[in-house]
């Protein structure tokens, strides 16, 4: 039995790297700095150690041969999930390039709200250490932040010391849209977050008014979607008065049509504030289970985020047409590869197509896939790298135990090699 300290997590997206984990053979126990997201993800037991073809246990070699066979004559295989580490994504993209597949990260439909805004007008963003040391006002838009990342406030808002904020407990925390589900946003001295509550799909209208107010436009209406314009005016004034305001949102939580316009509105509002003689930055929340990793690696390998097809011999990005569910529904796809090394509950979508699952040990299926290859989890069973929510920081993932499970990279690379042999 050993205790491993300073363990970093690929699960929560905010780059916690102070976990202490007790390793007893194959079983893990988070004994320090766990949370509702990380603890179960680390402690998930290994159940499957053997690959299966058509539900029958087979050797890894046979499963890989079968997978290659299934992919060999496909016209448009879809590689979904895309939830793994940097090396896993490298091999996934090499395989996709070789067999003309579509690559689609399972969280892309949420992330698309950000990408469309970024690719249309850009943004001014910041990262977690800047938040921790500089932020004097945090505006949380449409997102239950503590449910998303339980330790966000503890680590980055109510930190004891900050280089440029004298008393962190005096920081303003304001929610717009969804109210917080717990008390994490309440400051150590008991100050509760200010909440301007409205329905999530009213955010476009509310934010349009907020941006107008930031720009100094007159609004005749006295209320918008149940919120008093005077309260929004106060928020606009707070944003302009803050020295280093930070606006955060989870793109996936903005679950309404054309939420990219809302992200754009927010991002343009942030730019406006920076032209009003102060600083303000965006902080998009993401980074769970390899979503940021998938987009980063696909970004440098192809130029595009992880919803890209290789079917014409070169990468083509389309944030709508390359969606897994669209390709399954239209009948265009002729095989599904599902790669998910982090989360046993993130199972492939239902399909009648031949399906290869390269998944975390412990996954259970309503319908047994043609091939199932259990793989190790990056940061538990093998070392690796993952990108944090703020994109610029790649965290080093440690190997915690010797499970003998292969990595995603090893499995996908071997399938790709098998495809080279005609």
């Amino acid at each position: 039995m050993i205790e491993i300290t300073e363990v970093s997590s690929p699960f929560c997206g905010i780059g916690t790297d102070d976990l202490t984990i007790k390793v007893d053979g194959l079983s893990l126990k988070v004994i320090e700095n766990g949370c509702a997201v990380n603890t179960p993800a680390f402690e998930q037991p290994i159940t499957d150690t053997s690959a299966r073809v058509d539900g029958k246990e087979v050797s890894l070699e046979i499963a890989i041969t079968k997978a290659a066979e299934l992919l060999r004559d496909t016209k448009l295989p879809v590689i979904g999930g895309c939830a793994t580490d940097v090396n896993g994504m490298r091999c996934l993209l090499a395989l996709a390039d070789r067999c003309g597949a579509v690559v689609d990260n399972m969280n892309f439909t949420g992330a698309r709200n950000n990408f469309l805004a970024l690719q249309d007008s850009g943004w001014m963003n910041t990262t977690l250490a800047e938040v921790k040391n500089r932020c004097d006002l945090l505006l949380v838009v449409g997102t239950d932040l503590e449910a998303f990342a339980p330790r966000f406030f503890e680590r980055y808002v109510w930190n004891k010391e900050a280089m440029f904020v004298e008393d962190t407990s005096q920081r303003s925390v304001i929610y717009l849209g969804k109210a917080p589900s717990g008390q994490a946003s309440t400051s150590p001295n008991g100050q509760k977050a200010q909440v301007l509550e409205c329905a999530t799909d009213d955010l476009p209208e509310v934010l349009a008014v907020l941006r107008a107010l930031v720009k100094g436009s007159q609004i005749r209406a006295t209320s918008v979607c149940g919120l008093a314009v005077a309260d929004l005016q106060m928020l606009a004034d707070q944003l302009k008065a803050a020295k280093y305001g930070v606006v955060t949102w989870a793109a996936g939580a903005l679950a309404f049509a054309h939420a990219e316009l809302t992200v754009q509105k927010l991002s343009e509002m942030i730019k406006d504030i920076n032209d009003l003689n102060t600083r303000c930055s965006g902080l998009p929340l993401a980074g769970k289970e390899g979503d940021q990793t998938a987009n980063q690696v696909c970004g440098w390998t192809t130029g595009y985020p992880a919803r890209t097809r290789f079917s014409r011999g070169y990468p083509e990005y389309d944030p709508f047409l390359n969606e897994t569910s669209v390709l399954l529904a239209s009948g265009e796809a002729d095989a599904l590869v599902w790669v998910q090394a982090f989360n046993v509950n993130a199972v492939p979508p239902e399909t009648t197509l031949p399906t290869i699952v390269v998944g975390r040990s412990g996954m259970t299926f309503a319908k047994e896939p043609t091939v199932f290859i259990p793989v190790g989890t990056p940061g538990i069973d093998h070392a690796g790298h993952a990108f944090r929510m703020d994109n610029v920081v790649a965290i080093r993932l440690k190997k915690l135990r010797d499970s003998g499970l292969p990595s995603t990279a090893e499995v996908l690379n071997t399938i790709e090699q098998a495809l080279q042999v005609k």
Partner: protein
Amino acid sequence: MLIKLTGCTVYDPASGVDGKLQDIYIRDGRIVAKPTEAVVDKEYDLKGKVVMSGAIDMHTHIGGGKGNIARTLLPEDHRQDPVHRSDITRSGCGHAMPSTFVTGYRYAEMGYTAGFEPAMLPVNARQAHMEMADIPILDKGGYVMLGSDDYLLRMLTAKKDQKAINDYVAWTMHSAKAIGVKVVNPGGINAFKFNQRKLDLDEQNCYYGVTPRDILQVLATAVKEIGVTHPLHVHGCNLGVPGNVQTTLDTIQGIGGLPMHLTHIQFHSYGTEGDFKFSSGAAQIAEAINKNKNITIDVGQILFGQTVTASGDNMRQHANHKFASPNKWVTMDIECDAGCGVVPFKYKDKNFVNALQWAIGLETFLLVDDPWRIFLTTDHPNGAPFTSYPHLIRLLMDRSFRNEVLSTIHPEAQKMTTLASIEREYTLQEIAIMTRAGAAKLIGLKDRGGLSAGNWADITVYTDNNDRQKMFEKPDYVFKDGQLVVVDGKVVSTKWGTTHVVRPDFDPSVEKGLKDYFDRYMTMKLGNFKISNDEITEDGRGSISVHPLKGDVA
């Protein structure tokens, strides 16, 4: 396996060879002296061919977060230049900010065998190395960025001595796996976080009270004292601001004879004369360079067309966002470490400012006497994508071509440049110095950038052609570590290059202060921040090459 390249016309400034007829022998990846009895396994008849060592781009943004933001920002640019996969090469995209694989192929196809990322943030170094690990064929390395990091500024405010700063700089180079140190808008990226929008050489950071001049002084001293060959790599204050020629001259004067490399100096050579209050400061800059032997520069030439600017200088990039074309842009404050700004640009020959920028870069090339102290760059992708180098070489080597292009740019810009009267044409040997021997010497690369026995066999073979653009865009052969990787300007095989680093000594007790700082203020544990050797080598493709420090016995 012994390879013989027979009858080469060799341009090897590292050995003082200028157009001499020679045979070159290659064994086990290296150039060897003529063996006495061995059998030649493979011979290439290179009679009449121009042979140089593989070219080295000493300043090119090929790895790290801002480049990937630039990629993500510009899908429409990639769609103009899709790159198909082949049996031996991966698919990807080209033009302004190519995908990693295409970066490697296209550099190699122009005869380049190494590229150095000049703006590697300590906290983003991991990403920079991972991206560069996916660039095939090329060797690579990075200059780690300091100067706006709160740790250094706190040290300066606390009046820590030079020894302590040296230890921190050396530790950072180890941690980030760097071969040089860069400073970008010294202290300015930090000042922007405190809402300062400009920072002159002697202007104080409003929180720390430290000036850019102070930062340049301690960092240039540190780099020298810890024995790093590559001088402090400086992206100065006031990038792009009319009148910044004076800032640049003051920066040269202020460094007091310490070794210093001023990068993309074209963007820092602007006067305020003329009807448009924008003029060339190239002559003054060149005069200062010629006089001050401690200074080296690269040009950061702009060439006309669409590109994207990606810089650590978020202060200046924010100020320049109004010129974004297409109109979208990104800035980031990063981890109490640095920042970045990404702004797409379209340089137009009929735009007065852009036309004069073009002329200023060329004036600089042509007015600086010593090719060992000036380097050929476009600051890829900021002035233009690296794929425009053959065109740039023709502009330097062919006066009539240069004047032809000059006659087509904005007429007022033509009046504001002395370019038409400059007769100089670069020679092949001078090009070889700028892009090979000089670059290797400046970075401190052992066994690269030369063709004498003992060097790694990075070799480029060209067919002489009066059209220098045609000549340099399509080498006959390129060898990387002795492996034939390009024939007739096309990749025929691929391999993985190495990562070049230096490892200056530091007092291990430096980590005491750092650990305390990381525990209190950072978002990562110190142990998780440091990049291990395994991270470069564990995938079986990467390797690390450690180069000597100054004063090391070779």
